């Protein structure tokens, strides 16, 4: 027997004895994923396989250690705070404030009417205008939102899904008006409808029509907007809805497979569109599990793209991702504690090799962030980047017996889920049958039960509470906004060239009824100031609306 084996066994016996005298805190330790057990100790025995095959070098297949050869030694991740509230004027001011504070990219939050394709004066928009993001009903609002921002210098992410085509068209139109051609702009649209059906809820059209719009965008951008990330395949909201870390990876990548399949079916060349696919993950509190999760996701996707889809361009193999810290981990109680949670989560994202990062503000369990809390959130990233030293070498946790073992285990369990979804006919079918939704709901209920029983401690909520907490100052949205937006829309509808609007909408309707790419028609419509609602209503008419079954 080798020296290691003898010593290891001896140590195990010693540890058992110690544990019988001083019982361990739990009988079984687990990560946040119910299905992953955590051992007392990890040793070289827990790490298997060939280094080159499983890890390789940064910027090289299978990208476990990162997608770039120098990672943060050349340039830090993009610090991209998601913001948007009230009117386009107010959000434009917040954008400029964040850029002055050293933020390096923009990220736009739209209000719910905008996200669901309703103008601010629509009946369905009542009470929601400007609440969770900025209200954008026409190109006019978009011009105000981006006023004074150099669109050839800054990259802009837009959290928009069902009407992504319309908002992208508006962005292109504003850029062109300011003398920046479409091939010079860069940014991301979320454009990930599958996770809207699963977890986030801002769908409009049924799956087939939605998938067509998405692949139309892939095709259009490959030709006209080459630096635009045409989709951000998102696990973030799946996790927020209560999934485990394993489910987050598995369902996100399964959705990714569905998009690649749809584009291939349309006849697009994989190496033309795949390099512009991007991802969006969550970062929760179980620090080491989160680091392993990002590494596992990169390795799985590289293999899927190379082996399953036969992509040839290394850029098609690379999983590039944005991270946001976990909103659902924040507590309304003792909100200052959230700064600490966000720090742990952000550190996990950085050690996991994220390309860009949003850190949540401490007051987000209560309201939209104030300017002060948004600044602290940005400062958290700046401190990690400039003071902690973790960005000075690439993938510094690699080789940790636990991290590598956990990376393998997350990969194994995620692949099991993906195989099961394949058997069901793919992600679209799995979602239509409610499979992903049921798995997430079961995990979310289990988490809540664990918190209620005290098995899972949430500091300040079920343990370490204080009475009579001071009330923090919260952000308020102007209640007059709905009226102001309605008045400005009424004026727009009177002053624009309505004959041109009608002609553009008619052309769009014809294209939607046929099989033309819809993007050029949408771009023409927004340029003559057809509103978001008018454009989406034409497609509602042609495509119908999605109504989910209840489970």
């Amino acid at each position, binding site marked *: 027997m080798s020296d290691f084996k003898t010593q290891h066994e001896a140590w195990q016996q010693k540890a058992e004895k110690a544990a019988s005298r001083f019982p361990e805190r739990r009988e079984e330790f687990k990560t946040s994923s119910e299905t992953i057990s955590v051992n007392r100790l990890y040793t070289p025995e827990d790490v298997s396989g060939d280094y080159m095959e499983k890890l390789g070098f940064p910027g090289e297949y299978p990208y476990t250690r990162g997608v770039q050869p120098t990672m943060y030694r050349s340039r830090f991740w993009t610090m991209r705070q998601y913001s948007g509230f009230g009117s386009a004027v107010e959000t434009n001011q917040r954008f400029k404030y964040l850029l002055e504070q050293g933020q390096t990219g923009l990220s736009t939050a739209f209000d719910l009417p905008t996200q669901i394709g309703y103008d601010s004066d629509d009946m369905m928009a009542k009470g*929601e205008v400007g609440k*969770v993001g900025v209200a954008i009903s026409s190109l006019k609002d978009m011009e105000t939102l981006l006023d004074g921002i150099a669109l050839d210098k800054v990259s802009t992410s837009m959290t928009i899904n069902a009407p992504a085509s319309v908002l992208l068209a508006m962005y292109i139109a504003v850029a062109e008006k300011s003398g920046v051609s479409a091939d010079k702009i860069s940014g991301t649209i979320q454009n990930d409808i599958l996770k809207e059906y699963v977890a986030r809820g801002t769908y409009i059209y049924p799956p087939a029509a939605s998938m067509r719009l998405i692949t139309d965008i892939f095709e259009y951008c490959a030709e006209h907007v080459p630096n635009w990330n045409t989709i951000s395949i998102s696990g973030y909201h799946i996790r927020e809805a209560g999934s485990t870390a394993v489910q987050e990876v598995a369902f996100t990548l399964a959705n990714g497979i569905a998009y690649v399949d749809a584009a291939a079916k349309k006849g697009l060349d994989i190496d033309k569109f795949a390099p512009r696919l991007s991802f969006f993950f969550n970062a929760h509190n179980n620090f080491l599990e989160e680091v392993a999760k990002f590494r596992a996701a990169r390795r799985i996707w590289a293999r899927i793209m190379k082996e399953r889809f036969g992509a040839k361009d290394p850029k098609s193999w690379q999983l590039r991702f944005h991270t946001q810290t976990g909103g659902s981990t924040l507590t309304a109680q003792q909100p200052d504690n959230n700064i600490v949670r966000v720090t742990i989560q952000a550190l996990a994202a950085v050690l996991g090799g994220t390309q860009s990062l949003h850190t949540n503000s401490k007051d987000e369990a209560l309201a939209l962030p104030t300017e002060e809390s948004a600044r602290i959130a940005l400062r958290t990233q700046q401190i990690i980047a400039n003071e902690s030293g973790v960005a000075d070498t690439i993938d510094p946790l690699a080789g940790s017996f636990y991290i590598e073992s956990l990376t393998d285990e997350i990969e194994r369990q995620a692949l099991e889920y993906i195989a099961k979804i394949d058997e069901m006919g793919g992600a679209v079918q799995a979602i239509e049958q409610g499979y992903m939704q049921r798995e997430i709901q079961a995990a979310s209920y289990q988490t809540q039960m664990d918190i209620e029983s005290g098995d899972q401690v949430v500091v300040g909520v079920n343990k370490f509470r204080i009475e009579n907490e001071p*009330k923090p100052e919260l952000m308020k949205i102007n209640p007059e906004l709905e009226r102001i937006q309605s008045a400005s829309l009424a004026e727009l509808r009177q002053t624009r060239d309505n004959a041109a609007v009608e002609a553009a909408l008619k052309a769009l309707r014809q294209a939607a009824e046929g099989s033309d790419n819809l993007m050029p028609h949408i771009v023409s419509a927004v340029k003559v100031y057809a509103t978001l609602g008018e454009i989406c209503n034409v497609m509602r008419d042609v495509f119908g609306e999605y109504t*989910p079954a209840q489970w």
Partner: protein
Amino acid sequence: MSQHKIRVLVAKPGLDGHDRGALVVAKALRDAGMEVIYSGLRQTPQQIVATAIQEDVDVIGLSSLSGAHMHLFPEVVRLLKEQGADDVLVVGGGVIPDEDIPALKEAGIAEVFTPGTALADTAEFIRANVQKRG
């Protein structure tokens, strides 16, 4: 007291798609022995009240995390009154700042459950406050 099971409509008014909380509460109330109907997303106050009356519920639980509660919650109570169904207990939950709660109670929302509320407390409140019906 009769054997009547408490009937609850858990509803998502407005455009908010965050249904994790609503679904957890629905399941917990079911586990607590109540009959629970879940409305699904994107319900107008009119639709919610129509469902409540049609399903003859004792309680409506409204959930909103989008900040639209000040418009949507009172509207549900107003419509219930208008249609003579104001014996239905209305409670709410979600991301709701403390300072909004007095006005919501004034408008007829019996209780507001904010983040961190124990499920058992919600069930208990409903049991204690639901109007006993024949």
